[in-house]
């Protein structure tokens, strides 16, 4: 008889404390996310030490809530999954130590998961029909990768950022525009009121055929535009700057993802990570995709943020292949994708 696999997953790599119960990799029984955004806002960004303290305060309550919302107790848990990297080391260690103590206490396997593989797996939860291989763009505050997902546990990086991550560029420009933190959603929102063609910012496509990104030139162009306007004492239309900046980022991301999908004969172009919640990016991709015969998939907004359900999904595919970790599993702040966790 077929037996269900229930995984309790934990994610604390940045400023979200999250625990989830996921069945068979695709069915989310609960996904509790406690964000610290309000705490970090006044500092203009995530303070690692503050994030670590908050994770420790909240983690056990979050795990309890995840179990309660799923309506199960620990006896029903078959394995404990946790993000082991990349991320803030102090923050990762809270989830990691909690997961280890939990796995040890209930005598079940521990599964370390790569955070980015988790983001990709968010799509398995959203799109039950999706199976590797496919091409995926992972874009967030810390990452901008075009990944060829060859199998559930096999990845090839086709391209990545050479400087700032896409989300990081959004944060920096949002700060320069006085919009606050976190920058991505704020820029997305105000851009709806702006003209994306008001200012022409450079698009860095880099050398012919490259899937890499570079956002530092665009960032400098936007900052120097703001500076020159100030020097000339001219009024800055924040919505126009935001919309034009966003258009430049989105155009490059969308174009490279669709081209990668076409060139690798992928039926799907898949979006993952915090930037996947950007409405303009989704729109642009769907438009380009339909022109080139590529189906564009992305997770619902809640699964784009850092959450434990996606970790539970990725862990399931390790679990059924017998890939588990031991109690010496350590935090790997700079873990690269595809590397053994």
């Amino acid at each position, binding site marked *: 008889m077929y037996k269900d696999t229930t995984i309790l997953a934990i994610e604390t790599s940045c400023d979200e404390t999250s625990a989830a119960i996921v069945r068979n990799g695709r069915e989310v029984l609960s996904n509790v996310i406690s964000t610290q955004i309000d705490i970090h806002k006044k500092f203009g960004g995530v303070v690692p030490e*503050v994030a670590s*303290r908050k994770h420790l305060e909240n983690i*056990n309550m979050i795990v309890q809530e995840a179990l309660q919302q799923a309506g199960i107790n620990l006896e029903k848990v078959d394995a404990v999954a946790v993000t082991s990297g990349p991320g803030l080391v*102090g923050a990762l260690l809270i989830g990691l130590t909690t997961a280890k*103590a939990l796995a040890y206490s209930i005598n079940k396997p521990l599964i370390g998961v790569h955070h980015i593989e988790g983001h990709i797996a968010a799509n398995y939860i959203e799109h039950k029909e999706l199976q590797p291989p496919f091409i995926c763009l992972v874009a967030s505050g810390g990452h901008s990768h075009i990944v060829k997902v060859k199998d559930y546990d096999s990845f090839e990086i086709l391209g990545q950022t050479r400087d700032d991550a896409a989300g990081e560029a959004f944060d920096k420009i949002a700060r320069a525009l006085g919009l606050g933190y976190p920058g991505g959603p704020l820029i997305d929102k105000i851009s709806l009121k702006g003209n994306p063609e008001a200012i022409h910012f450079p698009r860095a496509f880099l050398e012919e055929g490259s899937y890499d990104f570079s956002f530092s030139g665009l960032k400098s162009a936007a900052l120097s535009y703001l500076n020159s306007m100030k020097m000339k004492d001219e009024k800055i239309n924040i919505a126009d700057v935001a919309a034009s900046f966003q258009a430049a980022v989105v155009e490059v991301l969308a174009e490279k993802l669709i081209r990668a999908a076409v060139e690798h004969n992928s039926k799907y172009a898949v979006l993952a990570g915090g930037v996947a919640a950007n409405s303009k990016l989704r729109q642009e991709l769907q438009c380009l995709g339909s022109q080139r015969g590529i189906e564009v998939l992305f997770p619902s907004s809640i699964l784009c943020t850092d959450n434990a359900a996606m970790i539970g999904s990725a862990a399931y595919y390790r679990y059924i292949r017998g890939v588990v970790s031991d109690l010496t599993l350590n935090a790997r702040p700079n873990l690269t994708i595809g590397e053994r966790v």
Partner: protein
Amino acid sequence: MLILAIDTSSATATTALMEDGRLLAEYNQNSGKTHSQRLMLMIDDMLKSCGKKPEDVDLYACAAGPGSFTGLRIGASAVKTMAQVFNKPIAAVPTLDALAYNLFNFNGLVCPTLDAQRGAVYSGLYKWENNKLLKLEDYRVIDGKALVDKLTALNQQVAILGDGVEVLKQIDLTKSNILIAPPGHLQPRASSGAAIAQQMQENGFVESCYSFRPVYIRKSQAEVEYEKKQELTTRPMELKDVDDVWEIEKLSFRTPWSRESFVEEMQTNQRARYVLAELGDTVVGYGGMWFIVDEAHITNIAVHPDYRGQKIGEKVVEAMIAAAQRESINSLTLEVRVTNTPAINLYKKLGFDEVGIRKGYYTDTGEDALIMWYK
């Protein structure tokens, strides 16, 4: 009763298993391996070799700080999670108390120290009297050089221990009154934590996995910078402040008032007046008093451990005096532990005089209270 004790607050990782006062096992490791990788293996190995299972543990003893932020959190998250799974209590053992306990009945002062980075250490000062460990000073972060000068000036034998000794060794320690504890006693030992935890449990000072959190006594650099820009203000306490105040109460006293007591003080006690100190919009200290005819009896004063040493207590007491005077009450009185020298000095500075002693006033330690008056 089986106690599992853990201390990962410094370079040493230590775990102990104590059953009904008998030490079954103690593992200490100070080899530079990360606590994150070692801790669960140490616990597993220790339990197994003693023929015990995780579910047999009745009480967890966890190093509660101060110490290495990351180290404290590794121990705390392991303990909190095991306590959660097996629904068992946690004794939050102050790291410096546990270190001082290593030198049971030492004939002199004991100064435990833990590396606080950048040449500073976390330290406290203790002495043993009639088999009891007395805390002479509050935990603090102090520059290594300043601590050595202070200890030298004490002019009596002081034993130093903990990984802060490595910091102090960089300074001239040849002064004859400072001794370094021998290797077996030098580093945190979970057996000391277990012994203290047992006393804590007997006195009912245990917590749940949801309430336990380390006391860092130091903020993150980003918060320090942010708070530098904030203003310290005082105002009367209101009902909405009860949770903030109760948090400070729990962090400050061994026998804290209940949350309900504070609610009652706000809602029904006509004689109660409470004053808060706020840094920006964070409640950092408070003081309460009861107006009895023409006198104000101070009931409690506390400053959040993270904000001590910034003259916040002084601001609170000044605000209380002012609040009393606004209602034409010019005499204030309070009791303070005879050993609480820092507080006594503060009250003296603000115009309080010593007028008497109440014998055995504090039920937890049997200590005497000093009665002080402001007129």
